[in-house]
């Protein structure tokens, strides 16, 4: 097998799922080639068919999925015609799979070592004690320290990154020629993601296998792959050398992707300029609002410039320790302070466990701090009771991460948005309906959506409803807790644009919690970087990106996939 013969050739592949009512095509006329030792990436949003294509290769389509036509040639042989036994032999030994979610893809009841050994035994690579030794080697190869001890442990004793390494070890155990990596790092922290992908690059170099990388992240794909395939709604819309596609996208969809992908967009001067404009307008509107507040005695707050001030916030949780009578202290947030100025956006950035969400909840007064205070517009919120508390609630509203859980499924859209008005007794029925219409208009949703229920809307649409609900009380501050993290790239870009527009129009101030540093540049003015509950760096966004002071911040910036790729219109 020389490097001129394709390892994998997919020709005119069609895959469809059958439901009760109809047959729904998931992949249409897909054509794809992978050469030995190459890394090819399939990029697309959810519903693009990228995962379906990958699973079709090894005949592991879920549920009612079937290949309806086409060829899948692996080393010249059509896999669609292969017998069941032939496929069983092929899986693992010729084509390996590294699946997406490390939390659900390992059997919780068997040791890690056992699950890797199975691959070796099934393909007669080795057995017994020899296999045990090989398992340890494989885990080390996958980058897991202390491999001998770890092989005897269970999945629940591993962190997410460690589990992913175990899955990589499983995928490579029988030395396949092709490794299908289905979003292998999207469930992991950015820094861990970079480590694992770097490691996989290193393995490809030393072992020479080809990778078919499935991802939604265009930046990541172009960084790691030589050849890129872009899929949209089940079809391949563009393919070619990665760099060419990035620098000169031809299909309108690819152009959209390149324009919206945060890791790439954040590079552009244009997005930085756009942000500056938004901020100017927002600060101006906010100043007008502040002047009003300062004058009237009815409104909550004093009308100062600093709308939220957090001072020495600390939160300690008591967790069950080794013995039932001695709980251990877990310091989730350690002495965090910051000031949010009216009309601006402060981003709090950190990986999982950094404490950023806990800070947001303390600011929202959904959680009481162990130490420290939060001041809203000059008023200390820790001692607020009843009527004053209600007034405060009107000024600060949240938008949460999971669009599928942030709206009550038993409430119609109208009811969800009107609930804040009803709780605070604002307006009569007609006035409330008018307000709801107005809000839906602001978030670019048709008013007919009022009678619908959350289960009929997509993730992006639900987030818009959540935004409309958050704005119902005309708050001054909106806390966005990973509000765009669960959305597809293009939808994410839309929502960010919406948030920016609303900020300029209404003079809102945002506290933007996120793990994605790339998004920060498009939406924030100031950044707080957190790690393990502490503030690592606090600075203006422009400074953090051009001149990061701390080691950790530099690590985070480095880990942004695609950050190093030169694009048109970047500096």
């Amino acid at each position: 097998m020389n490097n001129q013969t394709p390892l994998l050739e997919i020709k005119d592949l069609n895959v469809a799922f059958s439901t009760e009512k109809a047959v729904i095509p998931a992949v249409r006329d897909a054509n794809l080639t992978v050469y030995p030792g190459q890394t090819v990436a399939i990029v697309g949003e959810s519903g693009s068919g990228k995962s379906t294509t990958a699973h079709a290769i090894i005949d592991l389509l879920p549920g009612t999925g079937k290949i309806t036509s086409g060829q899948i040639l692996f080393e010249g042989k059509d896999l669609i015609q292969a017998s069941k036994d032939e496929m069983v032999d092929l899986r693992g030994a010729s084509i390996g799979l590294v699946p997406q979610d490390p939390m659900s893809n390992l059997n919780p009841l068997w040791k890690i070592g056992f699950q890797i050994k199975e691959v070796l035994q099934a393909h007669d690579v080795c057995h017994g004690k020899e296999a045990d030794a090989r398992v340890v080697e494989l885990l080390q190869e996958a980058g897991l320290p202390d491999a001998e001890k770890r092989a005897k442990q269970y999945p629940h004793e591993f962190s997410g990154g460690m589990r992913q390494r175990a899955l990589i070890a499983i995928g490579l155990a029988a030395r396949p020629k092709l490794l299908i990596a289905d979003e292998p790092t999207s469930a992991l922290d950015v820094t861990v993601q970079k480590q694992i992908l770097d490691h996989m690059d290193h393995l490809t170099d030393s072992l020479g296998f080809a990778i078919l990388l499935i991802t939604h992240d265009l930046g990541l794909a172009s960084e790691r792959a030589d050849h890129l395939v872009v899929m949209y709604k089940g079809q391949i819309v563009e393919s070619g050398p990665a760099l060419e596609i990035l620098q000169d996208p031809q299909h309108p969809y690819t152009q959209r992707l390149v324009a919206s992908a945060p890791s790439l967009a954040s590079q552009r001067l244009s997005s930085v300029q756009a942000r500056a404009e938004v901020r100017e307008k927002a600060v101006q509107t906010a100043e007008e609002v502040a002047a009003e507040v300062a004058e009237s005695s009815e409104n909550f707050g004093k009308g100062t410039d600093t709308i939220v001030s957090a001072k020495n916030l600390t939160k300690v949780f008591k967790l069950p320790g080794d013995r039932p009578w001695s709980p251990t202290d877990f310091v989730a947030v350690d002495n965090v302070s910051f000031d949010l100025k009216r009309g601006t956006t402060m981003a709090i950035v950190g990986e999982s466990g950094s404490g950023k969400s806990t800070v947001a909840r303390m600011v929202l007064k959904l959680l009481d701090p162990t130490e420290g205070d939060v001041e809203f517009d000059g008023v200390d919120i820790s001692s607020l009771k009843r009527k004053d508390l209600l007034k405060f609630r009107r000024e600060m509203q949240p938008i949460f991460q999971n669009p599928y859980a942030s709206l009550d499924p038993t409430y119609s859209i109208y009811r969800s948005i009107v609930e804040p008005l009803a709780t605070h007794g604002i307006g009569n029925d007609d006035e409330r309906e008018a307000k709801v219409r107005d809000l839906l208009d602001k978030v670019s949703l048709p008013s007919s959506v009022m009678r619908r229920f959350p289960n009929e809307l997509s993730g992006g649409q639900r987030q818009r409803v959540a935004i409309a609900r958050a704005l119902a009380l005309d708050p001054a501050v909106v806390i966005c807790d990973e509000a765009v993290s669960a959305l597809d790239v293009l939808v994410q870009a839309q929502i960010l644009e919406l948030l920016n527009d609303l900020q300029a129009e209404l003079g809102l101030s945002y506290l933007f919690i996120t793990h994605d540093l790339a998004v920060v540049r498009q939406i924030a003015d100031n950044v707080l970087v957190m790690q393990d509950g502490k503030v690592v760096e606090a600075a203006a966004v422009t400074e953090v990106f051009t001149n990061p002071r701390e080691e950790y911040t530099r690590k985070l910036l480095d880990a942004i996939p695609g950050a190093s790729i030169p694009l048109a219109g970047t500096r």
Partner: protein
Amino acid sequence: MWWYVGKRLLQTIPVILGATLLIYAMVFLMPGDPIKALFGDKPVNETAVQQLREQYNLNDPFLLQWLKFLQGAVTGDFGQSYTGRPVSEVVANAFPVTIKLAVMALIIEMLLGVTAGTIAGMRKGKLFDSTMLVTSLLVIAVPIFVFAFMAQLVFGVKLNWVSPTVGGDASFQRLILPAIVLGLVSFAYILRLTRTSVAENLALDHVRTARAKGLSDGRVTRVHVLRNSLIPVVTFLGADLGGLMAGAVVTEGIFNIPGVGNLAFQAVQRGETPTVVAVITILVLVYVATSLIVDLIYALLDPRIRYA
């Protein structure tokens, strides 16, 4: 794991205390005179009444009554049955037979239920699955005594494969039919539970990963689906034992098996409250103990608890 074990053990104590108190309260807090009721329709002899009052501590305040009852329960002294022999002795003689019956029922229901449930779960929606589903529903929808009588009639009288009643000779052959009847409802539940569990597990991500490794279908089922599916069944068994005990009352009564259930059955028929209370208290204590053991076995089986 010790967290779990400790918590579980600690829970058992208030449960035993509370349960015995509850049983005692149910009987002796009822309106009406308990002693007069013991006589039922028969004429009331005043001296006998006083004697019985003393014997059952009914002249003491309620809590003291309960404590003395508890004391008796712990030391194994449950008073005397109407035949004059101590209840504890009668129960001790009858227990082995009931244990034999219960174990047989358990084995039958587990083997059949898990096997049928697994096959049904793997072939969800197909003929076998639908048949099993309907069968299990029919079994649950019919009272156990109807099954017992029908079984007696069909297999004992009409077909004469087995003897219709057991009587003194509680051998394995004679206990097979009653064991099947006793385990019937539990079999239906285990079948449904296994079926759902297997069907759910088959769709899980880690099963797909197992297939992607190149493992044969058989191995995937045995190693990655079955073991995971059986854990809820183990949990169910704990609660099921309670149902088996209740079922034993009816089954032993109908098949005339000299076990603990029959004791209760006869005592209920004769209106012998003290014996009923004694037997049921013992059964409850046994149930609490076996529940505890089942929960501990579960802790051993699930590594997420064992190595928490």
